[in-house]
């Protein structure tokens, strides 16, 4: 069990990079909230800056978010029986993999402002995936 970790109360503002410590942290939180609300079906009133340019990337982002939820639930189920079993390990490893993939995608879009489909879509603009994403 997690005895080596310090208490949950002591790390809220963790290691935010300098640029995010003030306004930008708020901006990031708002962006995430807007996305959650949009995903929950509520109307989007503001188009956040940065974010997916192409439909394909938006779909992928949504899919990853759903997968995280799904896989966390799977892992909890699997580990109920035996928390030290191989199945339990593998289930949480999958959660980690998807979480990292989503974080990488978010970073590419928000920080590097580069849609991964950019070069593919410049060669294939007519495909469904390369439709420009509008909220």
């Amino acid at each position, binding site marked *: 069990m997690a005895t080596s970790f*310090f208490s949950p109360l002591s790390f*809220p503002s963790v290691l*935010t990079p300098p*640029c995010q410590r003030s306004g930008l942290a708020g901006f990031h939180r708002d962006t995430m909230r807007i996305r959650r609300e949009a995903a929950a079906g509520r109307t989007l009133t503001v188009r956040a800056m940065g974010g997916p340019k192409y439909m394909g990337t938006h779909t992928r982002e949504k899919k*990853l978010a759903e997968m995280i939820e799904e*896989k*966390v639930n799977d892992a909890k189920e699997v580990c109920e029986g035996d928390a030290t079993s191989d199945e339990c390990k593998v289930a949480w*490893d999958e959660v980690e993999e998807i979480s990292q993939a989503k974080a990488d995608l978010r970073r590419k879009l928000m920080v590097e402002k580069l849609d991964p489909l950019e070069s593919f879509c410049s060669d294939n603009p007519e495909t469904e995936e390369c439709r420009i994403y509008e909220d």
Partner: protein
Amino acid sequence: MGVCTTLHTAAAAPPCHLRGFYQHKQQVLFYRNTAYTPRCGRAHSAGLAVRCSGAAGETVVIGLAADSGCGKSTFMRRLTSVFGGAAEPPRGGNPDSNTLISDTTTVICLDDYHSLDRTGRKEKGVTALDPRANDFDLMYEQVKAIKEGKAVDKPIYNHVTGLLDQPELIKPPKILVIEGLHPMFDQRVRDLLDFSIYLDISNEVKFAWKIQRDMAERGHSLESIKASIEARKPDFDAYIDPQKQYADAVIEVLPTQLIPDDNEGKVLRVRLIMKEGVKNFAPVYLFDEGSTISWIPCGRKLTCSYPGIKFTYGPDTYYDHEVSVLEMDGQFDRLDELIYVESHLSNLSAKFYGEVTQQMLKHSDFPGSNNGTGLFQTIVGLKIRDLYEQIVAEGASSPLKATTTKA
């Protein structure tokens, strides 16, 4: 079409070819000497000038061990920035490729050498951390081939679908960085590395970073994040952690000791553990090499805000090796603190006074820019550049010697 600028050595004028064209119908190759395999960076966007390596040496291979994902990107971006240019995914290829290419450097993600995809791992009950999920034979073969100047068809592991996609062609660059969970696991691959780095994040810091990463996601909670780390820990400790002993440089990230008891995880204590006796690598030191120093730069000449900055330096042993350890606890608030610190460090391999500060400022928006992680990553970048230049110089001088003895 393009024109090659050639650098003449006594051995032969190096050949060039235009890298960006290989995927399309035509390949335009200008060869001067077919005995050499071409080794060049990307063609410039003007389409006319091609930069080529003048060295008769091999590709320099760097290993970087880090948990969670490739594109341990902050480090990679700093590193490629030291060499100049930005690293980008290969144009026109698989959008889920993990590879990054800049003019001088290619970064390969070792997850591409998974022998089992996500379904396969589930069936066998192994995590990605387990060596059984990775094809070390292929890793060795391909890294060796690239090092010898041959292009390879490297598989792509797609992190989104969890499948192994069609391979992509990797041409030998000047510098190859292999990044992932197991760069130093296999002995044969280890022997190919010219330099290796291990990023050692302590449990508390890892937890804090993962919370930062995941809390905004629906589905995640403190418990799930904690559970995920806990579940992976046995495999991590068994397979990944032991690689530390093989690394030439370890960057250890710990919570600060400057703030007693309470630690929000904002301030970090970072240790740069540098192995002694590594070829082409001279450890950074403070004031007097080989002695033990404890230094608080804040005082009369420099005012710092709480909690300040503390440096220590000294020799030590690490897994039975002689090492030198440079440690920074605290954070930089101002530019003059950074330049002040830089001016007191030695063996930085900077090309000019203030280069470290300049690099840090260039990327002041990157995480870790105000503490030891950014500082030491930048310094390691300069060290790698120095190592690369030394290797190239060694390679260039030997053919000259050969011709003079012939004459």
